[in-house]
């Protein structure tokens, strides 16, 4: 029953990607989404998938500082752009204020949606360091979380905003 997987021609292209401040050369298929490139070709499994149709926000990463759904973007579209995944939020061993606040307040239950939420919240705080509760709700309205009822997530974003301002 076993067979070899033979290809007639090379199917991969070399992409130069800037991820978390590092430059990577990645051999991948051009039809792969950024989500697939990150998870499957770069083993950056901190980025999760929830629907792969752009419906849940779980796979959000930052592209040039803006939250993007990595399941709706091709890896090849990310060439020469600055990509940040959750693994890049911890800088020099120091967690981002959002990461600490989420841990302190119990905002991560199963934790599966948290990478996407942290990055989306980071984009918000980078642009608007003192958001109101409603502005946070608006910013995170594309990120589904089934565990927390969002309450501790909203509180954690507010706590992180305070910590950053200190």
């Amino acid at each position, binding site marked *: *029953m*076993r*067979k*070899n*997987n*033979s290809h007639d021609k090379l199917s991969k292209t070399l992409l130069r990607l800037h991820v978390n401040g590092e430059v990577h050369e990645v051999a991948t298929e051009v039809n792969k989404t950024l989500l697939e490139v990150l*998870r499957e070709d770069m*083993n950056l*499994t*901190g*980025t*999760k*998938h*929830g*629907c*792969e*149709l752009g*419906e*849940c926000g*779980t796979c959000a990463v930052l592209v040039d500082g803006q939250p993007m759904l990595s399941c709706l973007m091709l890896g090849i579209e990310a060439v020469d752009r600055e990509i940040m*995944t*959750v*693994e890049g*939020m*911890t800088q020099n061993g120091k*967690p981002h204020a*959002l*990461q*600490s606040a*989420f*841990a*302190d*307040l*119990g905002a*991560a*239950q*199963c*934790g*599966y*949606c*948290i*990478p996407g939420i*942290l990055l989306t919240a980071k984009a918000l705080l980078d642009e608007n360091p003192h958001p109101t509760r409603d502005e*946070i*709700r*608006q910013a995170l*309205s*594309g*990120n*589904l*979380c*089934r*565990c*927390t*009822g*969002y*309450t*501790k*997530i*909203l509180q954690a974003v507010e706590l992180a905003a305070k910590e950053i301002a200190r």
Partner: protein
Amino acid sequence: MKKKNLSVIGKPLRKIDAMAKCAGETIYADDLNLPRTIYAKLLRSPHPHARILGINTARALKLDGVFAVITGEEMPQKFGIMPSTEDEEALAVDKVRYAGDPVAAVAAVSESLAEKALRLIDVEYEILKPILTIEEALASTEDSERIHTWNRQANIQKAVSLEFGDVEGGFARSDHIFEGTFFYQGNTHLPMEQYCAVGFYGPDDKLTLWSSTQTPHYLHRALAKVLNLPASRIRVIAPPVGGGFGGKSDPFSHEICAAKLSMITRRPVKITLTREETFYVHRGRHPVKMWAKTGVKNDGTIQAMQYKTYLDGGGYSSYGLASVYYTGALQTVTYKVPAYKFEGVRVFTNKPACGPKRGHGTPQPRFAVEIQMDEIAEKLGIDPLELRLKQLVEANSLTVNGLKISSCGLRECIEKVAARAEWKKKFRKLPFGHGVGFAASSYISGAGLPIYWNNMPHSGVQIKLDRSGGVAVFCGSIDIGQGSDSILAYAVAEEFGIDPGDIRVLTADTDLTPVDLGSYSSRVTVMTGNAAIQACGKLKPLLLEAASQAMEIPPDDLEFADGKVRSASHHDRAMTFAEVVTKAEGKHGTLGATGSYWPPKNPRDFKGAGVGPTPAYSFTTSIVELHCDSATGEIKIDKVWIAHDCGRAFNPLLVEGQTEGSVYMALGEALMEEQIFRKNGLHKIPSILEYKSPTTLETPEIETILVETIDPEGPYGAKEAGQGPLLPVVPAVANAVYDAIACAFMKCRSRRIKFCGRWMDD
């Protein structure tokens, strides 16, 4: 040994895995990448009800890059979570019973190639008329096409009937009888993590299966049975689960197929289901039609209650035997019910099987109970809270159906939630379109019986100490986000007076960890917590003896605190925990101990008595404030207050988190989410885009009040928090809608208010 104040329990600590989760370092099942992994996909039936006449896999097998194709004939052994209703096959053999039922599986070099191969499998079906509603199933006769043949009555999976006390007499003594019919719509768990399993049959002839499962132990048993392997050669590992809510509690086709395909190919086989597939795997909330009858005196005290429930079970039994009993078990555990009769029926339909979702079978009848209580209060002119307060169950009492209530903080929950929400100022006093509603509930803290009959412990914990001062805790429990790993660490840290950070917790690995039955029925804190405390209790005398000898302090003056064993009277006379372990290890040899937990024996014994008993009941009350747009039918929740009697808040942050998450999930069930099907048996909305669930914009402010009753059965008095708080919120929404737009709501027969559980005559 001296008792000390609690230093870990009750504190709002981080979970031990919190930073890993926030750093993206937690490895979930689909994050595993083993060398040489190949990928599997399942071919699913497009028909809800059909006989399989033949499956030809030849064309798929010829495809370059395909490693194996399997069908049901290769593993026809039936399985299922409940031993008496095993009616599932890893891949359907003779018949498909819902659109989405898997019939074949492919392993290939890539997911896309596996998908391509699926299209080359030829299945010949004889299409049968599907049974899609409770009514159609109930109307089945001897001549009807049966979805299953093992069950006694055509398309009835299980019919149960229970009666306690003098029901007829109770209704005869009543001054008023209230009857109503209710419907609670089905919905699904929608965990953010899709199902994933990785199977690897190694060169040592041992099978390892990693799976996002809530019940690694039951999965272990199912694999042994279906694959015909000795259980000792199978290892099930559950990596941290990305949300379960009950949906990952059954053994599933994809898990068995990943294992089987690895046995054939001898390569790691990964299968990750798509979001669409998770809607078909389902095992979610049963749609239930209910009839409720309550007899009361003029003062509103209940004399008798009678319930009939009809559960739309879908194509397989799953937990259905328990589900049907649960729709009748807990009606008696909030208000005193002196006489009670219950009849329940779970039918088979050609839809994805329903199963346990947060609250398992109890949110539906709770919806009916609490709406009817409000109806009684209105008719008799009594405030709904007063009506309930005059007949609450009491601590240390036995219900008419033989359930033992240990602690009970229901009265405090009612009083506190009413005070915070300013109930008296609002009820029937808000302007038209605005309303408040109240409801109460109770839930189990762990099922009193295991799923398969045995006399072994429900939870086992093993602890290893060594000279490093580090403590390793092993337990079969699985952290699905609720924080069960942290609970183990907190309990052991408290017992030994050390920092939870000094504890390594290893869980959910059937080779390495003692059996725990799994993360279901809100059992984990009570059962693993007690087992952990027992294990610590076996080690402490050895440590105290060693410390006593070394410091020349009598053992009864010693205490475990601040990472030390110290004199309770002179805190400066102390040894570090690591030093004490070193002394004890030198004296007694390698230090380790096990702890076990069995729930208390059932107070009563009758057929069906296994569903309902528990070490302790939690109690919850909720008040919902909302407003309705009478023109559009839109309901907007303004705020939810919830008071939950959790026994002891092991970690208040986690208890609040469970409570808030329950409120959110309840609001989704009440106002947005429904698992619905087309006439051809296909799911109407199998995507997150169409299956609407609350976002940050729909989820209101939630105010949580924790009521601590310190239950004698729980570890440090803890009960449960994961499921109970969902229960009162849905009927509280219904009661608030009535308060907001009473007349319109009752009369409107085709109103646009999208309300999952509605009066059926609407």
